[in-house]
């Protein structure tokens, strides 16, 4: 997927919306900042998530960070091979590096997400 086709949370997760299912990953900017990823902890399918709340964690050398859901709903699919193949995040963050798929219970949070241009602007300003 191209980043221009995605929506972004201020917390650097991306969402691809197709009907009521959102595919979630983390942005290329975030992956590049997370040098030397060593662990990723993901939830099980069936877990309920809320926009802005943590759904998983990643550890890079010296830093542990939470991953935040951009939308409300229930996790219906998890990229379970990802924690054992973290290089995929570097190689294809917007494709094979997807993390979870969420069946959305509502679209309230989608309106608050940024398009790619707005997200890039946020990244430029925060560096």
């Amino acid at each position, binding site marked *: 997927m191209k980043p221009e086709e995605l929506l972004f949370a201020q*917390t*650097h997760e991306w969402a691809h919306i197709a009907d009521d299912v959102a595919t979630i990953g983390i942005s290329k*900017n*975030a992956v590049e*900042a*997370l040098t030397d990823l*060593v*662990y990723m*902890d993901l939830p099980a399918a069936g877990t309920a998530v809320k926009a802005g709340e943590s759904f998983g*964690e990643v*550890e890079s*050398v*010296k*830093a*542990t*960070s*939470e991953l*935040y859901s951009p939308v409300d709903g229930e996790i219906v699919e998890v990229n379970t091979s990802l924690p054992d193949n973290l290089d995929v995040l570097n190689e294809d963050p917007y494709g094979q590096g997807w993390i979870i798929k969420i069946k959305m219970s509502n679209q309230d949070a989608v309106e608050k997400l940024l398009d790619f241009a707005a997200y890039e602007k946020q990244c430029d300003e*925060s*560096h």
Partner: protein
Amino acid sequence: METARLILDPPAEGAWNMSVDQALLETADATGLITLRFYSWSEPTLSLGYFQSHLDRELHRPSIGCKLVRRRTGGGAILHDNELTYSLCVPSQNRWSAKNSELYRLVHGCIIDLLQSEGITSSLYGDMVQNDDPNAAQNSQPAPTVDQRSFMCFNRRSDGDIVIKGRKVVGSAQRRAKKALLQHGSILLGSSQFAPDLEGINDLQSAQLSPARLSQMLARRLFKCLRIEPYSGVMQTDENEAAKNSHSSQFDSDAWNRQR
């Protein structure tokens, strides 16, 4: 000038120490308040990195009888005995900004300068490797084999770690929340019977640094580096309540400590 709270805590048990750091991080996340805290541990305690398996503690026989707590920060296990622990909670709008990593260098740079003022030569591991620092060459005894996957934090090395004669004496790790981060670290002052292969600053340089004196000196230096006006403080009532809650529900529970 920006202000920050300085907390100098008496020794406490490991789960409580981790609960307090968590409460201070939550305050920084909610209000932007900066807190620098120094503390020690009321009994020798092994803290596990967030992603470590508790079963791996069996691999480290000397600490097998020590209490255990799981940190919310990553990295390797630390035996908290003859050391000083610090925690620094600061607001950060972007948890994955490169600026966050600079905090390691800033804090560790202050520690190196402070040690130098006490006549103790130390360096960042990255600088030692890059410059073939004589600080490493002076090593009279071979340092333990460096293994990035080693169970113990002080047997690992990364560029930002502080070393004396090639041996790691200060290591830190961060937990990054939405709007703030917690950086806490261990300053190894001396060896412990529960981790006898590790040597601290006092062992390596025949120094007599005490946790109390080091925390006072380091607080002064750090606030000067950060250009922040400190005030002496304690935890507020709501922070104390939050710490009590996370102590019982998380850090003091088997479910948390044995989750992996």
